[in-house]
């Protein structure tokens, strides 16, 4: 049981790192940035290059991936979304899907579709004394990734709640026009939000690569959708909501994975086939009960 819990938290941590970008960008722009999963993918590959080509230490590789992903986020915002700032929202949404496909296919063109092996940057062996005393298999990898994720989430919370730019982000997401009347340069705040969200997703990409040992150009797809679901689950636009939603997604997926369902001798459903279906069913159920998500404020649509 505690074993499953640790696996769930590890998975949830990666989802949280992606979900935060979705939720923050949605907050300031009311846009689902569907290219976000690809930012995660590119971050993962930058980390891969940093580790296996340039042989950088793990922490430095994460940092490089974050910076690279932040730059990519800024380029996407400037090139694809800003020109559409006053266009109908559907146009921006379709553009987001376009950017996502563009990055996937560019990735396949440049890197090939085959998965690449990720170097085990951190010792993947279980920590022996924990296994002996508590009977739980926890790897050093899991510990490092969890600690790093916790540090990133704490840093982000501090930025959003305490710094001037963080408060400006919240002001813009509440009322863009009123924010302008304060002298806030809304374009700059939106660009910053993209950079911040992308950097975090980039770190997530490296952790994911190290954890699962591979990276490929389509790796952003499923985690991207799951993280999006997590963000909606927690209440899109809410930073703590995204963290909570991601943790729940991790719990549900890990929980379902461990179950095997014998419907009939010929039809046996294993957890890994049910996993995604159940995850999305949970989403539907929660949204039926709480349309604004778990921590979302019931939306008073602005006029």
């Amino acid at each position: 049981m505690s074993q499953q819990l640790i696996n769930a938290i590890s998975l949830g941590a990666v989802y949280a790192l992606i979900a935060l970008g979705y939720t923050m960008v949605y907050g300031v722009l009311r846009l689902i940035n569907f290219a976000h999963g690809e930012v995660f993918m590119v971050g993962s590959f930058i980390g891969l290059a940093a580790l296996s080509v340039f042989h950088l230490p793990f922490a430095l590789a994460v940092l490089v991936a974050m910076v690279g992903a932040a730059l990519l986020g800024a380029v996407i915002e400037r090139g694809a979304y800003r020109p559409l700032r006053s266009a109908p929202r559907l146009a921006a949404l379709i553009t987001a899907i376009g950017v996502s496909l563009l990055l996937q296919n560019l990735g396949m063109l440049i890197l090939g579709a085959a998965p690449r092996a990720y170097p085990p940057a951190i010792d993947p062996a279980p920590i022996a004394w924990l296994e002996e005393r508590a009977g739980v298999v926890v790897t050093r990898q899991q510990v490092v990734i969890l600690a790093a994720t916790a540090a990133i989430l704490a840093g982000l919370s501090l930025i959003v709640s305490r710094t001037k730019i963080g408060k400006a982000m919240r002001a813009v997401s509440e009322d863009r026009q009123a924010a302008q009347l304060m002298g806030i340069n809304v374009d700059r705040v939106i660009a910053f939000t993209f950079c911040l969200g992308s950097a975090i997703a980039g770190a997530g990409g490296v952790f994911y690569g190290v954890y699962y040992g591979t990276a490929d150009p389509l790796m952003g797809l499923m985690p991207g959708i799951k993280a999006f679901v997590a963000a909606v689950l927690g209440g899109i636009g809410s930073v703590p909501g995204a963290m909570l939603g991601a943790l729940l997604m991790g719990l549900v997926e890990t929980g379902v994975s461990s179950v095997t369902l014998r419907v009939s001798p010929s039809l046996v459903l294993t957890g890994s086939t049910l996993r995604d279906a159940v995850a999305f069913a949970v989403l539907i159920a929660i949204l039926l009960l709480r349309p604004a998500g778990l921590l979302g404020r019931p939306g008073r649509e602005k006029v």
Partner: protein
Amino acid sequence: MLCLRDVDVHYGPIQALHGVSLEVAEGQVVTLIGANGAGKSTVLRLVSGLIRPTRGEVLFEGASLARVAAHDIVARGVSHVPEGRRVFAGLTVLENLEMGAYLVRGRAAIRAALDEVFELFPRLRERRGQRAGTLSGGEQQMLAIGRALMGRPRLLLLDEPSLGLAPNLVQSIFGVIAGIRQRGVTLLLVEQNAHMALRVADRGYVLETGRIVLHDTAERLAADPNVRAAYLGE
């Protein structure tokens, strides 16, 4: 200080302002009165750069604002208290005020502005840790005005500050307006409560369906039989 010259504004196919010209001199309180939908708020939104004229010019201290972004207009010394208060409901009172001082540099300067606003609105000091969304309507209006003052504007645009407030609060809001004026801030005030507005203002403009039909000193407007009949309910 502020000068509109022959300004037209369109919202899509609808023309909201027709050749509006007006002037606000430094240190004055100028009020715009008129019925709902006459275009009063449009004039303020135009000055703060939220909308752009389709014809004519807006000059602030002699310089055209045509190509100045809304946030840069704030930097030039114009603050706008929008209709409906528009406080940041999820931010605390203090955070709202900090946003008002977004362009103010230096901790000491922000501190001083904050003290001044708290002096004007002691209630805000008591509630500074509270989320703005939990304040009453009158308190939100105080916060909206205080937030605009944090930027130390030279021109303050006030849109319907008395709207929806209880009569005793209306009195105190107009008291505050007189206090702001004493600090040397120039005011352009949009009001439905023409009675009160003409009492604090030096000059007034009357807007009807996007056109200025009358302008004069506040005193003479208040005595004008047409104004009395249409806007003062006599």
